[in-house]
């Protein structure tokens, strides 16, 4: 039974990841999706997919830099949520936007790079989602890691797709692009090493500062119990 116990952090991550979906459903019932709801839900699911994809990429660097091990545990969930929103985004495009009009769908995807790049991003995510289980990790061994490096490709393509969807104010897509590139740099071996060294410096400083406070608290605690 203990196996299925979620930590508070995990619950928080799951709720946060489901929030965009709940928000869409809420707005649908509140009639708050504008006169063009299909465009709105397409944009919102796309945005959620990109944010979650970037968060997935941020997991390892966060652990390296801050030694926050709990994030490693939610990486798969974050990646799968990104896949869920990407899937919804695509399903809306096919089923609601174009209502399975195959001729128009093929035109839209292959005529211009904008939709094509989005489509490729989705294609990359499929094998990553399928092989995200422990069984596949074991089966693929070293190759698993190699395969999952593809997520950086997906991240960069997703940002490109997002940039092309914007008319002129490209601040947000560019910000996402910079973040993805920084996260990629953080994974380079040398950088990662120095980041990790940097973390030890910080954490030792932090412990230095925290220890007296902790001591103080541990002194206070017994008195609390006595109340």
């Amino acid at each position, binding site marked *: 039974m203990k196996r299925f116990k979620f930590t508070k952090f995990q619950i928080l991550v799951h709720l946060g990841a489901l929030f965009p979906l709940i928000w869409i459903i809420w707005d649908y019932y509140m009639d708050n999706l*504008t*006169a063009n709801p299909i465009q709105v839900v397409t944009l919102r699911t796309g945005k959620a997919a990109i944010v979650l994809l970037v968060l997935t990429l941020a997991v390892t660097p966060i652990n390296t830099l801050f030694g926050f091990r709990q994030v490693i545990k939610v990486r798969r969930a974050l990646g799968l949520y990104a896949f869920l929103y990407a899937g919804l985004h695509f399903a809306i495009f096919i089923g609601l936007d174009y*209502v399975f009009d195959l001729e*128009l769908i093929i*035109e*839209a995807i292959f005529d*211009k790079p904008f*939709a094509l790049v989005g489509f490729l991003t989705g294609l990359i995510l499929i094998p990553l989602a399928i092989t995200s289980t422990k069984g596949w990790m074991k089966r693929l061994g070293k190759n698993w890691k190699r395969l999952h490096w593809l997520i950086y490709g997906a991240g960069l393509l997703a940002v490109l797709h997002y940039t092309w969807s914007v*008319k002129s*104010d490209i601040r947000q897509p560019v910000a996402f692009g910079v973040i993805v590139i920084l996260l990629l740099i953080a994974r380079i071996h040398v950088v990662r090493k120095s980041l990790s060294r940097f973390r030890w410096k910080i954490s030792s400083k932090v412990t230095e500062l925290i220890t007296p406070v902790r001591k103080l608290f541990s002194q206070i605690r017994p008195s609390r119990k006595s109340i």
Partner: protein
Amino acid sequence: MEKIRSSEITPEELYINRRQFIKAGSLALGAITVAACSQTEKPSGNPKSSATIEGSKNLEPTAETITKTDELGDPANSFEDITNFNNYYEFTIDKQKVASLSKNFQTRPWTVEVGGLVNKAKIYDLDELINKFTSEDRIYRMRCVEGWSMVIPWLGFPLKKILDEVEPTSNAKYVRFETIYDPDQMPGLKSPWYQWPYIEGLRLDEAMNDLAIISTGLYGNELLPQNGAPFRLVVPWKYGFKSIKSIVKIDLVDEMPKSLWMAAAPHEYGFYANVNPEVDHPRWSQSSERRIGEAGRRRTLMFNGYEEEVAHLYSGMNLNANY
């Protein structure tokens, strides 16, 4: 294009009543559909079906506007859709928020300065204009470059009437339009991404075409700010952004004016911006569009369906180069 007499257009009280009736009716229908769905568990692929995510909302415009259709037989969009889904970057780029951000926009007093290469330059007062030129009903399709469209029952008069009155000289080749620049009332003007004020232009023969109108109202009422009050251009065979809003200045000029969008992204937005399913936007296909209120897509029509009226303006021109 077939013109529709005002007597054929549903008065506002009637359509509002009808709207409420249909809302109740479509709610009931929606409930039935939900029940039907749970039995069969098979979603319908029919775009008009209320079993889509659109639900009962889908039925509204179709049913409520039976008497208001464009010449192709498609119903006008609801007043609510037309006034709550707007591109008006002077206020905000959020289409849903334009209505609330613009609600206190002052449209009176308002003057429109018509000048440049003309014999009789003139400054018109808005009410003088409205009284002078009789309003006609024009039900036009509006195709946005983003890939959606609406049918809108405008009130207005041909632009030609004003131009005839000021008498363009023989040197006048183009018409240049300018939107009001008022940062106090228009928060979007702070955006550094565009060279304000909004500028648009037409070739003189395009401007003299009977389809090109100045609109001052829609659905029988004066225009609301989000729709470009009090005085805007409507050129239905071009992408929506050509139909410049809240005009304060019209100039007859001899050189092709550079529009705001031409300045912002010259390789994406040209001077002509005619609706053309064959000429894609550099980033996305223009071959189809979504009519607001419908699921699914319609094939985009050449010149937005006004080929008969305007195609001759561009005969012999390379439309790929003159996008």
